[in-house]
C-alpha cells in the first residue's frame, strides 16, 4: 500500500523562507542593538580602573593628574586644590569615556591624600 505524504508547493516554501529570514534579521538587529547599547560592562571596567588607579596612588603616596587609556575606555583623573589646600584634602574629578569617545560617567569626590 502506498502511503501519501503531504507536501508544500515551491511558492509556499519560498514565502515561509522569507518569513523566517525576516524573523532572523529582526532578531540579529535586536541582539546587535542590545550588545552595542549595553555599556554596563565597559562602565564597570572603567570604574574598576578608577579604583585600581586610586589604590596605586595611595600606595605610592603620589596624587598626580593621570590619563589612562586602553582598548575599551579612557580615564581622565584630575586633582584640584580646595580652599583647604594647605591640608591633605583634594577634590578629585574623574571623566570616563568609551573607545568611541562617548561619556561613560563623570564623578567628583573629596579625598584625603594621607
Amino acid at each position: 500500500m502506498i502511503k501519501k505524504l503531504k507536501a508544500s508547493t515551491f511558492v509556499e516554501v519560498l514565502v515561509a523562507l522569507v518569513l523566517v529570514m525576516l524573523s532572523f534579521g529582526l532578531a540579529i538587529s535586536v541582539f546587535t542593538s542590545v550588545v552595542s547599547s549595553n555599556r554596563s560592562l565597559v562602565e564597570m571596567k572603567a570604574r574598576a580602573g578608577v579604583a585600581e588607579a586610586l589604590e596605586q596612588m595611595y600606595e605610592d603616596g603620589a596624587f598626580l593628574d593621570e590619563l589612562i587609556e586602553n582598548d575599551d575606555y579612557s580615564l581622565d583623573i584630575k586633582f584640584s586644590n580646595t580652599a583647604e589646600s594647605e591640608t591633605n584634602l583634594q577634590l578629585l574629578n574623574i571623566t570616563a569615556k568609551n573607545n568611541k569617545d562617548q561619556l561613560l560617567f563623570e564623578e567628583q569626590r573629596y579625598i584625603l591624600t594621607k
Partner: protein
Amino acid sequence: MKLKGGAMYYALMMAIIIGIMSASLMLYNYLNNKQLIILQKQKQVVDNVLSAINLYTVNGTDLKTGESKVINLFDDEQQQVQVSKKMWGGFEKLTATANYNSFTFSKTALIGHYLSNMGNKALYLADLNKPLSLCGKTEIVGDAELPASGVQRAYIEGQSFVGTKLVNGIITNSSKSLPEINTHLIDENLKYLQGQYSAEDSVVSIDILEKDTIVQPFNEKTMVINAPQINLLKGIIKGNIRVVASDIIFVGRDAQLKDVILYAPTIIIEHGFDGALQAFASDSMVIENDVMLKYPSFLALATNDQAGHLIINQNSEIAGAVIAVQQQNSKNNNYISIERGVELTGQLYTNGAVDLKGSVYGNVICKKFMLKTPSSVYENHLLNAVIDITKLPETFAGIDLWLNDQNRKMVKWLE
C-alpha cells in the same frame, strides 16, 4: 490561485518564538541597565557621604559643634548630604547622611586632633618659682617649657640622676599659669554629670544591663543608661551609649566595653580590664593594676573647687588622653597619680599636680609635679619617670585641648 499554508505555519511559529526571544532580550537589557543605574546612584550616595566626612574632617570651622545642616557637595543640588557634629566624650562625632529614593546611607566618624602648639612638646611645667628636679633614671626626650629656675639634678630616696642629659630637647621658659583649656570639652560632658540629657537621647533604666549584649549603633539615638550606682561586671556594651551614675560606676574585669562613655562622681576600673572607653568623673577615678585602655580612650576628672584624684595603678597601659581639670582656683589641687610601670601613650594634662612614676609617651602639661614617697612629698621632682614625645606615633590624634580647629584627623569609624 489558492495556496496551501502548510509551511507557513512552521515559519510563523518560528517567527513567534524568535520574536519572544528578542523581546525577552530587550526586556532583560532594559532591566539590567535600570538596575545598574540604581546601583550607580547608590554608590554615588556612598561616595558623597565619604566626601562629606573628608571635607568636614579637614574643615572644622564651617560646622559648629551641635550644628546640623544640609550641604550641596560640589555646588550641585543633586548631591546633597546632611552633616552634623557633636561631642563624643573628648572627641568629635561627625555624621554624614545622604539618600537616593528609599536608599539611605549614613556614616559616623570619630574625629581627633593632631597635637599642636604646646602639644608637640614633651613637657610644659608652669613657672611656680621652683625648678624641676630629676632623680634616678628619669628621661625627658623632646622640647620642654620649664620654669625660669630651670632643671637640675637631685638626690632623693637614695637615688641621684644617672642620665647624661637632663632634657634631650630645647628648653624654653614657661609662664606662671597654664593656657586656657577648651572649656567646651569640659562643659559638654559636665551636662551629663549633672543629669542634663539631650532631647535626642533615649534614657533607659539599669534593667537593660541584665542583657548579655547591649549594642547601640551610632546612626540611632544615643542610649543613656541611668542609675545611682552602676556595676558593669560582665557582658558586652558597645556603641552609642552613655552610662551615667549619680554616685559610682564600677567596671569589672570581665566587662567588654567599646566606644561607650561613663559619667559618675566616682569611677573604678577593676584590675585586668581590657577595652576602649571614655570616662568622666567629678570626684575621683581609680584605674587598678594591669588595666589596658586601648586607643582612643580618654579619662577625665573635672571638679569645681574641691580637689579630686585620678589614680592609675601599676602596669596599666592607656592610649589616648588623661586630664584633670579644676574649674575654680582652690588651695587644694587636683591630683593625678601615675604609678610605676604605667605606660600612657598620648596626652596628660592637669591644672593641678602630677605624681609621675611611670612613662608618658607623648606630652605632659601640668602646673606642678608632686612626688609622693613612703617617707616624704617632694614638689617638682621626678624619680625614674619617662616623658618621651618621640615615641608618640605620628598618626596619633588626641583631644582638642586648645580649641584648635585645624589639624583634625579621623580617629576611627563609629559603627
